[in-house]
């Protein structure tokens, strides 16, 4: 806008590498949990139940004597998949709805915005609960419920973005060059309207993880034996006084992942805005 910038976002020299350093082992755990923890995450050993962290069991053991380190490591994949699955579904549905509204003509816009208005008028948790009331719990349904809860927000962003992009100089310029409508949408409108969303989605990913955990807490979440962090964390709350480690490690894993992804998302956002405005 102007050279007169008194305040500028300070470059975060250490936060990006730190975020990657946090995420790297988590990604490895998600890709190949056996590499980090060879034992089965559901192998029980009641004799060694509720051992505090120590040699042999770095994160301690839970009430069935399962090694928590192993469970946290093996929990990476289902947890990330939950976050990712919900986010991908929501982004895809949001993009579709948003674009349909922005590009589909007045009638389509009217219908989609009305529907979005309705969905947006409900708290996300209520939407998720509604889906779960109907479909029941379980990983797939939790993913779906969170996706449904997040879709309207994403759709609205895509719609707004697409409306801006549609009226932008470069779309008009491309039209002036003789580009057809499908090509306009595919090459210019779609990527530019959905781009900002992808950045937002990194933040949404963390939110999805937390939402999943909240559903587990309310008793609607992912059920064992899959060691999913949110469910493990929810489970651990009953042991706060007696075996704090049961909740601490999955909780720390969630918080670390969410913060790291947030930091990366913001960096991407900064880069995106720097590149496009």
């Amino acid at each position, binding site marked *: *806008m*102007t050279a007169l*910038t008194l305040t500028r976002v300070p470059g975060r020299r250490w936060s990006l590498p730190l975020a990657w350093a946090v995420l790297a082992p988590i990604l490895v755990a998600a890709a190949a949990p056996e590499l980090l923890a060879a034992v089965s995450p559901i192998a029980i050993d009641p004799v060694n139940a509720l051992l505090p962290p120590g040699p042999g069991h770095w994160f301690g053991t839970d009430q069935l004597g399962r090694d928590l380190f192993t469970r946290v490591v093996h929990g990476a994949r289902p947890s990330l998949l939950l976050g990712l699955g919900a986010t991908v579904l929501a982004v895809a549905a949001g993009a579709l709805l948003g674009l349909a509204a922005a590009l589909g003509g007045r009638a389509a816009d009217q219908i989609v915005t009305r529907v979005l208005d309705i969905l947006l008028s409900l708290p996300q948790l209520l939407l998720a609960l509604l889906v779960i009331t109907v479909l029941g719990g379980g990983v797939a349904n939790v993913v779906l419920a969170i996706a449904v809860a997040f879709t309207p927000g994403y759709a609205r962003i895509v719609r707004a973005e697409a409306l801006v992009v549609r009226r932008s100089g470069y779309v008009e310029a*491309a039209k002036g*060059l003789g580009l057809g409508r499908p090509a306009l949408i595919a090459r210019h409108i779609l990527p*530019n309207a959905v781009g900002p969303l992808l950045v937002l989605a990194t933040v949404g990913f963390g939110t999805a993880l937390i939402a999943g955990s909240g559903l587990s807490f309310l008793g609607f979440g992912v059920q064992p034996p899959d060691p999913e962090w949110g469910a493990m964390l929810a489970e651990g709350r009953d042991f706060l006084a007696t075996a704090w480690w049961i909740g601490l490690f999955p909780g720390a894993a969630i918080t670390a992942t969410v913060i790291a992804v947030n930091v990366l998302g913001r960096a991407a956002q900064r880069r995106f805005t720097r*590149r*496009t405005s």
Partner: protein
Amino acid sequence: MIQVDGLEVSFGAVPAVRGVSFQVAPGECLAIVGESGSGKSVTARALVGLAGDRASVRARAFTFEGEDLTALTETGWRAVRGRRIGLILQDALVSLDPLRTVGAEVAETLRVHRVADRAERPGRVLSLLSEVGVPDPGRRARQHPHELSGGLRQRALIASVLAAGPSLLVADEPTTALDATVQAQILDLLGRLRDAGSGLLLISHDLAAVARLADRIAVMHEGRIVEEGTAAEVLAEPRHPYTRALLAAVPGARATAPRERGPVQLSVEGVFRRFRTPDGHQQAVDDVSFELRAGETLGLVGESGSGKTTVARIALGLLEPDEGRVLLGGRSWSGVRERDRRAGRRRIQAVYQDPLGSFDPRHPVGRILGQAVALTGLPRRERPARVAELLDQVGLPATLLGRRPLEMSGGQRQRVAIARALAARPDVIVCDEPVSALDVSIQAQILDLLAALQRDLGVAMLFISHDLGVIRHVSDRIAVMKDGRIVESGDAAEVFGSPAHPYTKELLAAVSWDRLPRRRPAARASGPGRHGHE
């Protein structure tokens, strides 16, 4: 009154101002000119201690009315700002808080410096506003900035700066965003203030504006003052090469004689266009007709909002006229279906005012031009060669192919935009304010490039600008627009020589052609084949 010696400002390790010295006496106007990024604004802000949190400011000497300002604390500065030195910021149109009334902004200065007590303030605000020439100040004071025109906003800003009676006024580009007629009024106002005894430090990249007001001129280049002298001296006998280049870049009248006219390429016949606005309708284009022949340039000039861009979009087939029609190469161009129009699109191309906005921010130059070339139906393997040819035509190196729009300078972007327009080998090019976002020196290069291309390729050009200098420089014929209508048209020389319509007269009167030396033809050597180095 203010004396600055060896002012240095740097941001981190990057120096923005490198040892600038000057002084301003009461009743005197010193103008600092220089291209964008040369450090003018930073200098101005350093004078009130607002160079920025991350700026480190040093000066051998920095005194104001005999007082040393180098050692001033933040509290000390606050007593200086507004009360003794007034700063009119560069971005005049956004320098008033949009959420507060104009009156509140003016009153704030009074309040901060306790110039007037609460009861007196409303009266003072009104008198200040009327002093700077705001009509009906009582109503205006209650309005918000967005309800005011650019000129009024600039005046209100000046009123807020003058409120506490500073003896030195620093005006950073006070007229850039304004129409020519309004510009003249603001400059007059500043002139009156200077005549009343204020010191005036005027900052601009616009020599025309400076020439009108300045007693002395200092030329800044890359953080240094490269030349200083009385206005007459500097304008007439520039010593430093940069000053000369700057002066040479000011567009003069078109040098070449009108050429032979080719066949009619584009004809616009009795076109109307209305837009719906929150409070009714706006007749953006009102019965506009003109025709454009091969090889000629029609200059369309008019103030902001007069409908120029709307005409351009109608001509480009991007907007349907409500009434009237457009013919391209003799065939119907308006009122046809988009599918039928696509074949003809390559015959008429555009260069836009805001090249940045006309490029997909994600696409690198190679892809931007590649897309344009692909649309001409060129076989895939021949495309890279054609892209290279186009780049060469507009004088850009092939190394730019991988750059994205944001990674290029304004001049480079505009050249890419021109290359894109040329890709289709059009018969008509519509240029909508192609140089108004550029520095004067770069402006000249682009104008020369366009002229040379037109000469070589024989295209017809519709050239839109609000800048009379630019229009005069490029046009064979001129059409003057006001409120959606063409109020006057004719050969360039005719219109400039003896304007018939009162509005044209007013427009021309606002520009002080005479204080500027004639443009030297030497500068026209640039053009195709020359590589940009801006």
